[in-house]
């Protein structure tokens, strides 16, 4: 499939024997890591999403304060304040001013900006911990199963099947009911214990194919221990799968946490979460719609941004998906001059040579060579 990507050892630009190779100028003499980084940076939506995502989380974290440090926002998320302007948001953009309660107040007078920021912080805690715990367990189980195969594999994969059979929202709800009272961090760790199955399967599949490679053989001949081979030789090559699926797990974790909190099985009072804000205020949306729009907007924003980042990472790690050579169908069926039901040949599709939207089809101008090289 792809060229061996032992980092630094073989650069992607190494000439291949047999068959013409088509390399674009910027693929020559660059290490795999830099190549991936460059491809990611070239993916505009992903890069912008990444920056926005970091910005939103930093903004929320500094506003409400994390790790015991106080934030810069003057109000607290639990204190009741006298209502200002019927609790309406005081945020104005022209001229820009935050006002007393930029996101308004809820029905009893709590500051909604402080609550939303706190919710974002809690939701981000939860999603990162779920992502990291899930990825760690998944990688370890998948790596061991894929590397040792045989009965170890069978046992570990049957355990994975057992966990996969229970829908994540169901087991999440049960786990949340049990440990939700212990606070967001404990909830996240326990949810991570049930969210690893997807990654384990992917990592196992990757290990099954990588363990047959020559560089593994070489390491084994050189006397490397199993653990060293797993973590030093194979795992770095499987990093693409791990990173991409962890990102997607994080995106799923946002939805999972907010959904559980919405149902009342996740984060409990006095803590707040974006999902809990929506479920608590559901009855008041008629009269105070902003109580819905702020948390809902942030949930969708965070989840959308992580998904875009994940998409960009996938493209960066697996550029084959971009290499699809597709002749655009320029004239569609209704064109009577071309289509003939009697099967008379008249249609030579307007090929890639005349395509005006260059970037992707231009790769295909060299025919199938780039793909053929990869498959050899």
């Amino acid at each position, binding site marked *: 499939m792809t060229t061996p990507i032992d980092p630094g050892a073989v650069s992607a630009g190494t000439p291949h024997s047999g068959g013409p190779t088509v390399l674009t100028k910027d693929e020559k003499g660059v290490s795999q890591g830099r190549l991936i980084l460059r491809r990611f940076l070239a993916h505009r939506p992903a890069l912008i999403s990444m920056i926005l995502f970091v910005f939103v989380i930093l903004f929320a974290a500094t506003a409400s304060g994390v790790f015991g440090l106080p934030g810069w926002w003057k109000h607290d998320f639990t204190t009741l304040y006298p209502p200002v302007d019927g609790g309406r948001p005081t945020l104005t953009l022209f001229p820009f001013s935050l006002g007393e309660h930029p996101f308004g107040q809820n029905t009893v007078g709590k500051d909604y900006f402080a609550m939303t920021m706190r919710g974002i912080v809690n939701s981000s805690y939860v999603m990162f911990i779920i992502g990291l715990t899930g990825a760690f367990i998944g990688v370890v189980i998948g790596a061991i199963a894929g590397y040792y195969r045989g009965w170890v594999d069978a046992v570990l994969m049957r355990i994975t099947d057992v966990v996969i*059979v229970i829908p994540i929202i*169901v087991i999440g709800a*049960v786990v949340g009911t049990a440990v939700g009272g212990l606070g967001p961090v404990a909830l996240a760790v326990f949810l991570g214990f049930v969210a690893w199955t997807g990654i384990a399967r992917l990592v196992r599949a990757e290990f099954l194919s990588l363990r047959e490679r020559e560089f593994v053989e070489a390491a084994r001949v050189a006397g490397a221990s199993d653990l060293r081979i797993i973590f030093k030789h194979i795992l770095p090559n499987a990093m693409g799968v791990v990173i991409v699926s962890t990102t997607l797990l994080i995106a799923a974790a946002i939805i999972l946490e907010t959904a559980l909190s919405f149902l009342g099985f996740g984060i409990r009072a006095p803590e707040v979460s974006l999902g809990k804000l929506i479920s608590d205020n559901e009855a008041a949306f008629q009269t105070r719609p902003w109580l819905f729009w702020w948390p809902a907007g942030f949930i969708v924003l965070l989840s959308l941004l992580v998904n875009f980042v994940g998409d960009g990472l996938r493209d960066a790690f697996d550029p084959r998906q971009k290499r699809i050579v597709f002749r655009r169908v*320029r004239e569609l069926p209704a064109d009577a001059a*071309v289509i003939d039901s009697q099967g008379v040949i008249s249609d030579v599709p307007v090929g890639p040579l005349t395509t005006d939207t260059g970037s992707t089809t231009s790769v295909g101008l060299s025919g199938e060579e780039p793909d053929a090289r990869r498959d050899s």
Partner: protein
Amino acid sequence: MLSYVLRRIGVSVLILVAASFIMYVLVAWARDPLTDLYASNNPNREQLIAQRIQWLNLDQPVVVRWFNWLLGAARCVIPFGGCDLGVNIQNQAVTVLLGRAMGATLQLVTASTILAIVLGILVGIVSALRQYSAVDYTFTFASFFFYSLPSFVMGVLLKVFVALGFNNWLRDPVFSWTWIIGLSLVSGLFWQAIIGGNRLRRLVVFAASVLTTGIMLYAMSVTQWFLDPSLGPVLAPLFIAALAAGMVLIIAGPRARFAWRTAGAVVIVLIAAYFLLQPFFRGIGAWGVVLLFILAIGVGILAGWILGEHDKGQAMRIGAFSGLLGMGVIILDQYMQRWSDYLRNPRVGGRPIATVGSQTPNLQGDFWIQSIDSFTHLLLPTISLMLISFAGYTRYARGGMLETLNQDYIRTARAKGLPERTVVGRHAFRNSLIPITTIVAADVGGLIGGAIITERIFAFSGMGALFIQGLNAGDPNPVMAYFVVVAIFAITFNFLADLSYSALDPRVRAK
């Protein structure tokens, strides 16, 4: 093959048993079923506690209770074995509760699943055929957006803002000029992007659809169409004919005379049926409607067979689809005619889009009124369920179609001069369906479990409600019943997905 199937079933049963053990222990650990009684100050509290302990066998250890539950559940598999899924904390048999809940949930998820699959694949393929165009980017962004939208946000959005807005608007159903112009422009942009072609053609399509939409909206607004909608004796035949023509254009192309003849015959029969059947529709029931659809499809197939000339299969397909869609128009027209009766019903009170439950309590009416009532209740939850799985299917369909279009056999098909319609419809589309089938099959299994949140928002008393109430009360048996159904669905559909893969793609062999 047989040994593969048997082995798979054996392993699945073991997995199910192990998973049920984990679930049972977790639920027992999560919450004490006696919590509500401990907090109550009922004078006969002690007695109630003792009673509940006896109902649920709480004096036994968890493992023993699980084992008893398992024995009861295992008897459900044996015919006439006396299915026993235990009782809930009110001592009601869970089997009865489960049957009721499953009916409601299936009703909810069926329509949304079918719609999501059809629309998702359609949109994905259009998106792939117009790769890197404005349509593609719009659909891609939309599918990302819906994918990132948690179902509860979607549900609340529809319930609080859409349903209420529509009901309020229905008091005076007039489009303002801003709406008319905005919607017309959107429809113009949409159609010119989908149909494509050179600049002139795009402009023509754009102008035509802007004008059509604008005039249509204005006419609807002036005649207060939404209070008493109907297609009438002019529009309904026109629609029937237009749908049949669309089928011919999509499946066979404008030059296929036999296809036009087939479609024409079906259209004539259906239009005649439209006028002849009008007096009889009042007394018809659900089975009558099903029968009409079957008859319409039969007429289509027959017409295709007689008039199909050298390509009977294609003609029969065109006939069947034209018959199905044309009968759909006729039935839709009937529903529209009864809509104003429904609106004026005192139980509905002019606010048709419901946000709670699955039917209006104590609604009197015949089959048509009842099904309009189900429709208005199911509309919003169905949309909210549909949009979520729709997003995923679009991505898969697009990816699958692009990959197929890149295959060598597609190039061969083009090289031997097949029309683009045949290349896309017969060679690319069918092959791209193989991976989608497996994904869809695996997904459908999870859909029943996924309706928890939607059911909670729209106060639907289905499986999700059973699960949530059970879990909140620490009541193990309803939760376990829910789990068993969901797990069996998931396992079965995963199995079907694998089997269908090896059946559809001979290169994949199940072992």
